[in-house]
């Protein structure tokens, strides 16, 4: 039992944090909001700066040319990406698609883009329910329409499901399909719908393996949303703490009022106790611990609630200024709202937790 990051893990996280500080400023996000054409704000240099740190190859075994690391490293990196509301598919690529590719037994060819091709990948067409993934891809003749794709315009590859004859998992090339943009309140999520053609070349898995990988993909998406929510929480609370320490009303900083203190203290306590649950779930997932599903639902439910609370009190403590488009708060708040609901909200994950506990108890002798 040693529940903390290693020095190496912290160094890697801090390196990523430093790169993000350069390449993902509030100004960059404001620009993306201002200029929301389908391919706008796409920052090849930003993605390359992250890619060059090897993050997308993190989960790839060393024997295949990757870093041979796992979720214990990546979880802290995703948290850092959340802190700046990164508008790139970093968690999607490194936390979901690449590990699924590795687990699917896909060969070197499939992994290559993520080793040295600048590859960015995402997923879509599936949502979380307490009883399992719900497939939301729709057949369109020989093609498949997959909606709900995050960072769609920033991704080269799409992990998606075709369910024509039983569920199949595919890795589609976005440029080969037709991409249409969906407008989210958080423009920087760059949601989209891809209509693509399943082929032998795109097929990753069928039958039970496809179902297992799909379960894993949704669990991974939930966990990495939770990690980003931690970062968002922290960023909102910090931004607000600075603001209320400076902003004066009635001749004193508003942060000296007990009501403001208690709002922020409450949010901070929630964050403080959500964080270990997210890290523990990353450990469970990386070590294939039998409690991984339980731990991911625990993590997502706590992180979603913490983020809702942090968003609520941050807006309230900012007062009217937080309600403006030009202030930075909304950049964080809208992402927090979206991720809190994405891949199962707090309630849905608590529902799954109860299902798991109930199943466990019915197996045990009474």
């Amino acid at each position: 039992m040693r529940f903390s990051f290693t020095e190496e893990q912290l160094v890697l996280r801090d390196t990523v944090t430093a790169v993000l500080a350069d390449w993902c400023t509030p100004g960059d996000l404001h620009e993306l909001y201002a200029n929301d054409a389908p391919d706008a704000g796409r920052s090849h240099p930003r993605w390359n700066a992250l890619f060059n740190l090897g993050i997308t190859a993190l989960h790839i075994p060393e024997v295949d040319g990757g870093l041979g690391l796992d979720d214990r490293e990546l979880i802290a990196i995703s948290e850092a990406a959340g802190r700046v509301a990164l508008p790139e598919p970093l968690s999607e690529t490194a936390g979901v698609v690449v590990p699924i590719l590795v687990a699917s037994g896909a060969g070197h060819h499939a992994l290559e883009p993520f080793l040295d091709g600048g590859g960015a990948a995402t997923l879509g067409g599936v949502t979380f329910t307490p009883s399992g993934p719900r497939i939301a891809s729709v057949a369109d003749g020989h093609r498949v329409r997959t909606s709900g794709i995050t960072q769609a315009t920033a991704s080269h590859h799409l992990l998606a499901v075709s369910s024509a004859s039983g569920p199949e998992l595919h890795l589609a090339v976005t440029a080969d399909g037709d991409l249409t943009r969906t407008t989210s309140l958080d423009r920087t999520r760059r949601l989209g719908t891809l209509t693509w053609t399943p082929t032998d070349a795109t097929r990753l898995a069928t039958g039970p393996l496809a179902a297992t990988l799909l379960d894993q993909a949704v669990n991974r998406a939930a966990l990495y949303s939770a990690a980003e929510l931690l970062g968002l929480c922290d960023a909102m609370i910090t931004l607000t703490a600075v603001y209320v320490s400076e902003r004066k009303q009635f001749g004193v900083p508003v942060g000296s009022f007990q009501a403001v203190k208690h709002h922020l203290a409450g949010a901070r306590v929630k964050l403080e106790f959500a964080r270990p649950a997210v890290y523990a779930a990353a450990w469970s997932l990386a070590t294939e611990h039998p409690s991984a599903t339980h731990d991911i639902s625990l993590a997502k439910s706590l992180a979603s609630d913490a983020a809702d609370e942090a968003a609520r009190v941050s807006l309230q403590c900012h007062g009217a200024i937080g309600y403006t488009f030009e202030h930075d708060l909304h950049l964080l708040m809208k992402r927090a709202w979206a991720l809190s609901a994405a891949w199962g909200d707090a309630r849905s994950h608590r529902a799954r937790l109860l299902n798991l506990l109930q199943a466990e108890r019915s197996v045990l002798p009474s």
Partner: protein
Amino acid sequence: MDLTFTPEHDAFRMEARAWLEANVPPPGALRSLDTAEGFDDHRVFERQLFDARWSVVSWPKAYGGREVGIMEWLIFEEEYYRAGGPRRVSQNGIFLLAPTMFEYATDAQLERYMAKMASGEEIWCQGWSEPDAGSDLAGIRSKATKTDGGWLLSGQKTWCSRGAFAHRCFGIFRTDPSAERHRGLTYFLIPMDAPGVTVRPIAQLDGETGFAEVFFDEVFVPDEDVLGTIGDGWKVAMATAGSERGISLRSPARYTEAADKLVDLLLATPVDEGHHLDPRSAIADEVMKAYADAQAYKLHTYMTATKVREGHTVGAEASATKIFWSETDVAIHRAALRLLGESAELEVDDGRGGTDLSEWLDGYLFALSGPIYAGTNEIQRNVVAERMLGLPRA
């Protein structure tokens, strides 16, 4: 105790309902209130309301009203929300400024402004907050200095709702520079097209310009546009603040209609089978809590209206009311977004080739401002504790 309406009330209700059913534009037909085009769309509808004498039912007939009582006003509002009437672009004038005008304005002022306010010909914005005087209105620094036949106003106001497109502004300025806090303030009625007025629109959360910063550089306002007495602006302004927080701004129907739609949304949400804990039931309780609060607000308003009609005034209770309606509004819309789940963040087809916020998301963003504006709920809780419960001031 009688909670039924009289036959006269029922007749009034039916007349309003008939007109509204025939005239309220379908959802989305008017463009967003917070755009220049939408602002005009909404003014056209205000004119229709005015022509049919529905825009200000409780006002004197001379200014386009029907001189009806508070119960009829509540009935009209119920019908307005029931019919899905659009947001009132003239709201700041008719709900916030007008009660103050009827209390403090000269006959000439009433003559000059009220009918145009009622018809939407002149839209008013509020000039309350300043960068350093948000919740603390007494910290106002914008000043007015005497000149021949009037005053020269200088300073900066912010969070002026409707400020981007409005024709006139009401607000308080410091006329006695040696006085502090609540003293030496005066209430002015200001033309937005006067030389020296500069408007900087402020985009709100959804990117649209619901409010503005307004800069005043020696803006001339004639003596006849002072409302109330010189130096008495705080008292006059507090009358408006009372209206803003009190029953007049927020018709219960706004919440009961939204809550009813929320229940519809709940009942239309598919139940996810295959597991023992039904998350729809878990959210159902949150939905019904919001529904119950909307109903409670309605009944509380009837009780308050009875008191008002019988000559009682609403004091610190207005603070309790403001806390309650603003939090109910957030609760209703938050529950709806939870029901919508992952799709809550998505915009919807606006019928004009673009997309717009869904009704629920738009309502949520709007609701979030409730606990902040018109005196934050933190300030209101202080008022409830000190004035309703007698707790000592800090």
